[in-house]
């Protein structure tokens, strides 16, 4: 089982499913525009013709931001709007993640939309359950970290130095990253199990527990994350180095490209897991034969 060839197989599918990914990205953009519209109206009203607006286009400007936040009331009036949008987006992505389960592996270009929608509705509740379980697991990790930090001491006045606390916080952050990473692998196993066995919750958990610490899956998950991180870092440096010497809109395009990459990553990740699982299964069958 070659991780890279598994990954390559997952990427090859992009040629078929890219319209769906583009659609998901488009919806994300739409949410962005919907979010920004009341802000834009508020900004146009307060600084639409003020020369002060020019300071907004010149990088981080503390005075500009604080004046605008003070005079427009900031995001305080938009918080329920923001939460509502995030919730809606969350539900939409439960659907898209469920839909991904229908378009894993090679498919005909003609049938992918149907399969995507069918899987989206078929596995919606399963993915929702898995997501809540993942959130529950992550919350357990957070709680454990909080309890341990509290037990080690958070009162600055009782410390000889703050160095121990800084070290503990760093360790906690590393632990949470690793924990989150492992939950991701566990979650993907659960998703793939749903395709084969439906939502039999405890058996799904049992199966995921059996396999999620396999070195192949960990390596593949790491490879996925590393590739995404590499691309995002490249884009970040490209964006930073371009500075202001670019045509209007280029920076914005780079920003959108990074969003698109994250959408693509979500598909490649589950698809590569699927490919690895298939490859492992056939390998096991060959061995049995």
């Amino acid at each position, binding site marked *: 089982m070659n991780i890279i060839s598994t990954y390559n197989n997952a990427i090859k599918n992009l040629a078929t499913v890219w319209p769906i990914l583009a659609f998901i990205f488009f919806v*994300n*953009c739409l*949410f*962005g*525009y919907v*979010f*920004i519209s009341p*802000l*834009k109206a508020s*900004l*146009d009203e307060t600084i*639409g*013709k*003020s*020369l*002060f*607006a*020019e*300071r*907004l*286009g010149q*990088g*981080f400007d*503390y*005075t500009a931001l*604080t*004046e*605008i936040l*003070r*005079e427009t009331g900031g995001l305080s009036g938009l918080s329920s709007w923001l939460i509502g949008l*995030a919730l809606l*987006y*969350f539900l939409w*992505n*439960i659907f898209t*993640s469920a839909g991904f389960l229908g378009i894993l592996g090679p498919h005909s270009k003609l049938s992918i939309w149907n399969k995507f929608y069918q899987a989206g509705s078929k596995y919606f509740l399963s*993915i929702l359950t898995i*997501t809540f379980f*993942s*959130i529950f697991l*992550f919350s357990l990790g957070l709680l454990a970290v909080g309890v341990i930090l509290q037990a080690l001491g958070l009162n*600055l*006045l009782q*410390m*000889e*130095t*703050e*160095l121990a606390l*800084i070290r503990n916080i760093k360790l906690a952050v590393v632990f949470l990253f690793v924990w989150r990473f492992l*939950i991701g692998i566990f979650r993907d196993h659960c998703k793939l199990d749903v395709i084969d066995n439906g939502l039999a919750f405890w058996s799904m958990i049992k199966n995921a527990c059996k396999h999620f610490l396999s070195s192949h899956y960990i390596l593949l998950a790491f490879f996925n994350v590393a590739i995404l991180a590499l691309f995002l870092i490249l884009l970040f440096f490209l964006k930073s180095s371009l500075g202001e010497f670019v045509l*209007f809109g280029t*920076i*914005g395009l780079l*920003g*959108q490209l*990074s*969003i698109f990459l*994250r*959408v693509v990553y*979500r598909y490649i990740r589950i698809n590569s897991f699927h490919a690895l699982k298939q490859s492992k299964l056939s390998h096991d069958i060959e061995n049995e034969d």
Partner: protein
Amino acid sequence: MKLYWFLFFCFCVSQNLIAQDPVLSPRIANYKMHIELDADTKKLSGHTILRWKNTSNNPIEYLLFHLYYNAFKNSESTFFKEGSIPEFLSSDIDEVCGWSWSEITSIKDQEGNDLTPNIHHVQPDDQNTEDQTVLKVPLAYSLAPGEEIVLEFDWEAKIPKTMPRTGYNKEYYFFAQWFPKVGVYEPAGMRYSTEGQWNCHQYHANGEYYADFGNYDVSLRVPKGYTVASTGSLKEKTEDSNTETWRFTQNDVIDFTWSTSPHFVETTEWYKDVAIKFYTYPYKTDYTKRYMEIMKFCLQYMEEHVGPYPYKTISVIDPPVHGLFTGGMEYPTIISSLSLKFFPEGVKTLETLAAHEFIHQYFMQMVATHEMEEAWMDEGITTYYEGKILNAFFGEKCSTIDQFGITVGNKEWNRTEFFNSSAIDLAPNTLKSYEYTNGSYGPTAYNKTAIWLETLEGLVGAESMAEIMRTYFDRWKFKHPCRTDFLDVVDEIVLSNNKEQFPNGMQWYFDQVLFGTAVCDYSIEHIENEILEPKRGFLNTLDNCTEEEQEGSPFICSIFIRRLGDMKLPVEIEVSYEDGVKELYTWDGQNKSHELKIHSSQKIISATLDPEFKLPIDKNLINNSLSISSKSKATSTFLSEIRSGFQHVLEGIVSII
């Protein structure tokens, strides 16, 4: 009796020996103290000889003393009742009995009269009889004008645990506002006194100290192995089996403060003949370079812009994390700053605090204003210079934060602190520190003052402002000025340098910014470019109507400006024309609105109020300019960044799915 005369003689001799340096101050309250620190029982025992001079024309019947440590005696003190002790400081006070007290056990005058039986606590500020922070010491005889009295007293104090500004925690001690200290007798004519009177406030949660100048000779006996940082210079150090005695002296100061710990690492560097002594814990020694650089810069800046630093030392303490309750304080020739290892280097807290507390050496240590009664003269002027120093040191745009591409300047930080607070029109600057409500003390005393001093600089010009501050410092150093003294200096300089602009001085300005709560907000409401219609009617003859093109400027441009706040200031208006030409106009800012009409050959494309940002006191900078065209391109770049950020947040949220 002979013994007292002998002691008095010795004290006078020692004072004369110390007083080899030029006499800088009136030296009214002079102390010789021997202090013992018992690190096991957390107690101090002291023996003090106070030589105090009656500089008034009144005979004096009694003295008032501050017993600051009684502020932490119990929950009934005025300090505690004012309730501004942070929870994290007072949380374990009961567990370890961290309460403190201070009492004079015996007191005698140079005649040998025992004054102890008649001493009692008084409460000059409120009716809280539980507060014991001021002690009245009736004298055995009237102290005639011009006479001196020598009082010798023994006292004891229990050291508080982690109280604001002072106390101990683990093996770190910081002794500020700690010893029985005589109040200030203000003779008639000094500050607001119409007749001689004591000025000795109780210890309030908001409010520091006010004292007369004098000479200090203090011996501090501490456990062996402890390092002492203190006001003044170390004269000698002796030791016995378990203790060491450090003797410090300092002339012409208003207080004496010290700190000790067995873990202090001491570093000394020099700026000219001033020793900069830095004390910190071993894990923080990497900050030494940053401290030394900012302190040298401060010394140089204040020397060049205000006046020379007259003392031989300046000690800086960066307390350990368990001593952070003592960080950010100023005492004569010794200051405490604060750094935390959590902060990245680009967060300039360390430099900001060090600079701020150092500037206090000038404004309230040398120009000894009354912090509790007129905090703006102390904290406000200091914050004004803090901005100047940090801007000169780091650059205006990044003098407070410069990290990860995020930059914040000190001046803009000040504006935000004030205009984002509820204090914007809540209180004038003239309240006593403990009279401010709803958290308005800090924003009003510190930030608002700095902003209106910068605005004053904008109005009168940088040169006049520099002259004002130099004159004020020079005239009032080693004295106790009040606000009228500052205002007099301002008027004197302005009437000499800016008479054409401000023929009646600046009282009108102070009525608004200092004595009032006026808010400044000027706004450009709209711009119009009207094409001049041809002249019509009976123009050159009565026989028939004619029409003639207007000569010269084809446009009548008008700019409509409004004064939205109640503060009235003269403002400048910069007008930009289509061809790139800019013109500057002025408006006295008095009426509620003003229409600026200009005949021009070019259309006006934009107008800006206060283009050089001379009036940082203007609350809203957005409405200070207006263009005839929309600036949506700039806002869309900004909005696209926000949108992209939001999209990433959304993707982050759904990554758990």
